[in-house]
């Protein structure tokens, strides 16, 4: 689909853009509609700074899981065990901190290392032994659910007293002490983000012009920049007027930047897309398919451990029910975010949008006091509609 700014008018270009990118736009439209709907239904409660902070804290662990899941799904595998791996790792961290009194700053890397080991074990079964990922991780679901219960058998729910640990999912970044009412550091970070976004978009555009690739016309490009800047600043203002940026957002942001860079700019990222697109071709092109798959499972379980830490910190306690249904939210996030059901396609940035869709639904329905059973039904329906829409638009694109 060629968009040539010399020949076509802006109107036509926008229609063409809508047509070719409808899949991606749909996701944003859905998110905005959901947000408007809940804001209306909760008389503005949904969009209040307090709730948005809350939403971010709620969505954090799902976003972390969903990013790892994106890799796994691109590779045409699946990981069902992430929920209980997260639950188990959360429980272990609680035991280590309360029973053994180890500092949280040692416990967190330690628990992530445990996640890595779990990933090694599952990756080994999938790549070396040849057990399908579905079976391996279904077995993992059993195993880690059992281990979670065993870990907390003697103690029951553990309340965590460590302030630093609990701040991870409940705290906010400190402010520069200027004595102003608004959160200055938050504003500063927002401004830096906007400048960086604009600079990198302009750089990409110039590069594309240099190589004579098709670009959006200037008005479309500028309105896109304006739109993105507005959104970022809006959220930043909202947060700055409350308590600032939550630590959860920082954690998710760091993981997002690393994974996005890895997928788009590095050899490893290419290999992941290559294997997902055509495994045999990838292998015959000299790609170490097993190694890359192994790495993806390790990254998944390590992120699951991190998600477990975030969830435990959020509740300020470890419970035997932690982890129930996490994998569903994570998988749904990735698919709503546009990972292809047939593998080979997907972006972590879009997965985050998918997470926001799913978690806005949860958050909004909680605010409205919708019964949890109905919540499952609604989320299921949205999920299947998103995937159905995805499959249809992709097959048309042929």
């Amino acid at each position, binding site marked *: 689909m*060629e968009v040539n700014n010399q020949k076509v008018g802006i109107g036509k270009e926008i229609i063409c853009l809508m047509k070719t990118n409808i899949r991606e736009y749909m996701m944003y439209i859905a998110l905005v509609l959901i947000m408007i709907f809940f804001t209306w239904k909760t008389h503005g409660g949904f969009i209040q700074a307090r709730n948005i902070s809350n939403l971010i804290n709620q969505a954090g662990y799902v976003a972390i899981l969903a990013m790892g899941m994106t890799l796994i799904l691109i590779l045409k595998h699946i990981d069902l065990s992430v929920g209980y791996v997260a639950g188990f790792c959360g429980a272990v961290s609680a035991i280590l901190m309360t029973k053994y009194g180890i500092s949280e700053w040692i416990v967190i890397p330690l628990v992530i290392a445990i996640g890595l080991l779990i990933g090694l074990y599952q990756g080994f079964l999938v790549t070396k032994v040849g057990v399908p990922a579905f079976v391996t991780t279904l077995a993992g679901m059993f195993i880690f659910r059992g281990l979670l219960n065993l870990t907390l058998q003697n103690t029951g729910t553990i309340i965590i007293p460590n302030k630093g640990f609990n701040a991870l999912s409940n705290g906010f970044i400190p402010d520069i002490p200027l004595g102003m009412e608004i959160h200055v550091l938050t504003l500063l970070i927002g401004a830096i983000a906007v400048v960086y976004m604009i600079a990198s978009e302009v750089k990409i555009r110039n*590069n594309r012009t240099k*190589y*004579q*690739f*098709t670009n959006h016309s200037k008005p479309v490009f500028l309105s896109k920049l304006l739109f993105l800047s507005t959104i970022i600043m809006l959220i930043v203002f909202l947060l700055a007027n409350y308590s600032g940026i939550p630590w959860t957002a920082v954690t998710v942001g760091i993981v997002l930047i690393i994974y996005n860079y890895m997928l788009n*700019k*590095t*050899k*490893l990222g*290419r*290999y992941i*897309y*290559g294997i997902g*697109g*055509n495994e*045999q*071709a*990838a*292998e*015959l*092109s*000299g*790609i*170490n398919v097993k190694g890359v798959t192994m790495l993806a499972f390790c990254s998944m379980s390590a992120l699951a451990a991190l998600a477990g830490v975030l969830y435990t910190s959020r509740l300020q306690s470890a419970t035997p029910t932690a982890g129930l249904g996490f994998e569903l939210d994570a998988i749904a996030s990735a698919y709503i975010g546009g990972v*292809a059901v047939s593998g*080979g*396609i997907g972006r972590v940035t879009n997965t985050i949008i998918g997470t926001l869709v799913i978690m806005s639904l949860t958050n909004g329905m909680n605010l409205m006091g919708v019964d949890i059973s109905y919540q499952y039904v609604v989320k299921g329906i949205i999920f299947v509609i998103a995937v159905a829409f995805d499959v249809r638009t992709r097959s048309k694109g*042929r």
Partner: protein
Amino acid sequence: MNDYILEMNSISKTFPGVKALNNVSFKVKRGEIHCLVGENGAGKSTLMKVLSGVYPHGEYLGDIVYNGRTQQFKTIADSEKNGVVIIYQELALIPELSLYENIYFGHEIMKGKVIDWNETIVNSREMLKKVKLDVNPSIKVKNLGVGHQQLVEIAKALSKDVKLLILDEPTAALHEHDSQNLLKLIKQLKEQGVTCIMISHKLKEITAIADTITVLRDGATICSLDCQEQHTTESDIIKHMVGREMDHIYPKRKNHEFGEISFELKDWTVEDPIKGREILHNININVRKGEIVGLQGLMGAGRTELALSIFGNTTKYNITGGEMFLSGKKQMFRSPKDAIKSGLAYVSEDRKGKGLVLIQDIKFNTTIANLESLTDGQTINENEEIRIANDFKNAINIKAPSIEQKVRNLSGGNQQKVQLAKWMFVNPNVLILDEPTRGIDVGAKFEIYTLMNELVKKGMSIIMITSELPEALGMSDRLYVMSEGAITGEFLAEEANEHNVMAMAIKS
């Protein structure tokens, strides 16, 4: 007076953005073998899909007169009811079902509410007899070779009481022997009154079998040649297909000196652990710098298995004996990665299944096998990548609007060029090309041959696996013939001819 079984008049079919068929007229006489030829993308398959109801009436313009009546087929079932049966290039049999289940799949013989299996088996046996396939109808399709599966497809068509049989490249996947069998069968069907439309790229078969040849080019009918009235040669057909004279199908190489031996196999013996038997026996071959060595043989002779066992052995064969030397060094590769590092490359025969990542673009596919050279550490130098992909696109004439074009939207010939670009970027010492021109049109073939000539001129060694005899004879400096897992003959280009090569290829 001519009796036409089928007249397609001024057929036009448009896809979004492309006019696939433009006012095409196509007439088939009753009881003839009518060959439909044209380059890839000329509209042959689209025309047949219009005929068989895949594109239902209303989605195209023009009319179809079949058996003297204007027809408006809405589905494949409609056309099959009228005796029009199409057999696609990719066979539509179900591997895990038996032959008789496959033959009557979709039009089961019923006794009341249940399937009459006895009758089915008896009838299947008769249908198989008609196609001269002497096997038990109870065996599973997956246990048959491609050639025999093709015959089962025809048996299936016969069971539907076919009047007009359409074959889409029926011999593309068959070796010489099976092809001959199939062509013989088609002739016999003709005598029994079945009219046959055959789409094919193999001009030699066409000239041997066709009563009439219709040439399509760019969605339009170029001409209809009556082979009974006037003798038609391959070059006549090519002229109409490409719209210009093609003096040489195989571009000549300037005589050049070969260097030292760059690749050699000594007594290479391989066992397939699944089949539990030896599949390659004491293979001895070598290739010199700057030489194109053909590896000719029928399908199933073990050529692809040989290539895969050399190239990192992804199929996990047991290499039970023998040695491999690459640039004088003894080697044994444990993965394609090892092999590529040492300067060996393999271009798969199955470009869609094992060669390209179809959902990615030209750039992605061009660089995927050699990202090392674009990185220091992990990060890819994207500017350099774009430059390289563009260079290759221009140098080997990949026809696409930009290197951001998805590979699945390219024609077969251009896909093949992307595959070649990928391996040229790796720049190996020894390149194994497995059926490099399968399923691509004459024009693109010529370009690929020219490219091969340029590569050997630069000192690369090429092993070309092919089942097309003329290609093997036309392109090789030297030729090995394989049969049933063993090398049965070796010829210099000037010694080889169709007879002595074929004699070795069917030797067991």
